């Protein structure tokens, strides 16, 4: 099984307070800690497990700048066989459709049976996988939390739907799946693993290599554009308890008692 996994480098929301800059044009990026998008990490783990059982290879690909290479190496340290960086100034400012179009151009150069994305990335768009599938004319399933290889033509998948229920389907290969967290337990990657792949060469493909016309992607080709960042007015918001730990705890206990929170 030849598997391609699309991965994205994102600010790690568990590690960072996201703050809007003074002009509202962007978030403050100076001190952000970046990592691989949480959902993509599950997708790579799943791909590695399928390869280990069914044979084949795992390629990880990202659209990003030079810094994005580090996440390809991280996923290769996990066990992906190959990394490809899609990078070009012309890609800057792409909307979801632009990213999907860039990925499609790379995919068209290879032969993949299975293409995985994360269910969603940092802006919670959950769009690139479904767009990519439609562009490739391949069947698609989102929020996949189970994959069972039936043959080299068809696989059985579970989608996580509301209430934690699971929708089981059969889907023909080649296909695109977006992966939901919890499908597996992604393996730990140590410093030693990263060192091992530190000198592996990662090809970089730009618009010219991919045959992408200038203006069809990037800011020029985007029909969906973010105009600003802002923090909405808090509305009522919570009453914040302040003071010493003792004072806060006492106040909270009183409140909980009055609301039936302490039995």
């Amino acid at each position, binding site marked *: 099984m030849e598997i391609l996994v699309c991965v994205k480098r994102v600010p790690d929301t568990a590690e960072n307070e996201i703050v809007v800059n003074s002009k509202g044009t962007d978030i403050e990026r100076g001190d952000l800690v970046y990592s691989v998008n949480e959902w993509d990490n599950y997708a790579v783990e799943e791909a590695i497990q399928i390869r280990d059982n069914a044979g084949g290879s795992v390629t990880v690909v990202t659209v990003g700048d030079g810094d994005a290479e580090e996440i390809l190496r991280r996923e290769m340290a996990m066990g992906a066989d190959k990394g490809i960086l899609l990078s070009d100034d012309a890609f800057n400012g792409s909307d979801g459709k632009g990213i999907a179009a860039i990925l499609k151009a790379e995919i068209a150069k290879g032969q993949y049976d299975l293409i995985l994305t994360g269910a969603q990335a940092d802006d919670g768009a959950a*769009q690139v996988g479904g767009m990519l599938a439609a562009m490739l004319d391949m069947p*698609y399933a989102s929020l996949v939390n189970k994959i069972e290889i039936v043959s080299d033509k068809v696989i059985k998948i579970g989608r996580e739907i509301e209430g934690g229920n699971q929708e089981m389907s059969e889907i023909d290969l080649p*296909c695109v799946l977006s992966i939901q967290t919890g499908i597996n337990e992604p393996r730990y990657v140590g410093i030693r693993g990263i060192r091992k792949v530190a000198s592996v060469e990662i090809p970089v493909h730009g618009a010219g290599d991919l045959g992408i016309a200038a203006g069809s992607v990037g800011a020029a080709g985007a029909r969906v554009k*973010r105009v600003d960042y802002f923090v909405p007015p808090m509305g009522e918001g*919570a009453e914040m308890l302040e003071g010493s*730990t003792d004072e806060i705890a006492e106040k909270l206990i009183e409140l909980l008692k009055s609301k039936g929170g302490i039995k």
Partner: protein
Amino acid sequence: MTQPIFAYISHKNGTADDSAFELIVAAKKIDPAAAVTAVVCGAGAELDAVCSTMAAVYPDVWKVSNPALAYPNAEVLRGVLVSILPAGAITLAPHDTFGMDLSPGLSIKLNAAFVPDVVGIEGIDGANLKTIRQEFGGQVSTHVLCDISAGAVLNVRSGCFLSDDSKASGSVTDKSGQAGDCKAKRRFLEVVAAEVGDVDITKSDVLVSVGRGIEDQENIGIAQELADTIGAVVSCSRPIVDAKWLEKARQVGTSGKTVKPKVYIALGISGSFQHLGGIKGNPFMVAINKNPKAPIFQVADIGIVTDLLEFVPELTDKIKEMK
């Protein structure tokens, strides 16, 4: 604006989803004068029931009936919608597990722009529609301009456009003949119900809920001890279940359980809409989080900015002393 607006109606067992009543409100925000059509796809008597409910809300209802649509398989429905929708249409769908499956690909096939997870609509500005979205788990919001000149697909977040008692005496048009062959390369097999756990968190009046801020599996004991002391049950957010620290049956949220407690104590939970979507009945909510900007503070009644790993054991000790 002269573009027609269509709303995809989700329904189950003959009852329309809440989103059906919200999408028309969203449509009117785009253009108060627009002709809005409800698109209802399915099979059998259930389909007719939903169509007549929708005719009381939407001025026009399109019905697509086919045995292949008895279960909403997004792969099949995408083909149906591409066949029946006119060029340049604006299509609204819910941003739920179905809409996430359907809409990104639909926008490509319709050659329309796509805006996912819309939480607000500010109106039309020339060729653009101005919408509001959230990023980074709701920590920041953004205005998004979408060029709708060739049409658009919008996925709308549940609960953001509250139903407004829209009344209509709409007519139902049968579009089944134009739906195409309803075949797809993904075939629905069955729905497997979520596992039942040892503890039923939906039965407890008081929940102590842990999120990723608990940092380590061992620390869950801190929450358990607080819960034992006050007579509560421990529930959690999704990352705790993904990490296999607690069983799935303890997860609160759209892909977990819907709970209706009197008191909800959130420890190290940021307040994503998928988590909050599982909390109903407006409980008295206490949020303990070390990030003062965490979105949970916008919905909680009481907020405490602190390291829960230090604060919660002290709180538990104090309650024990008092008892």
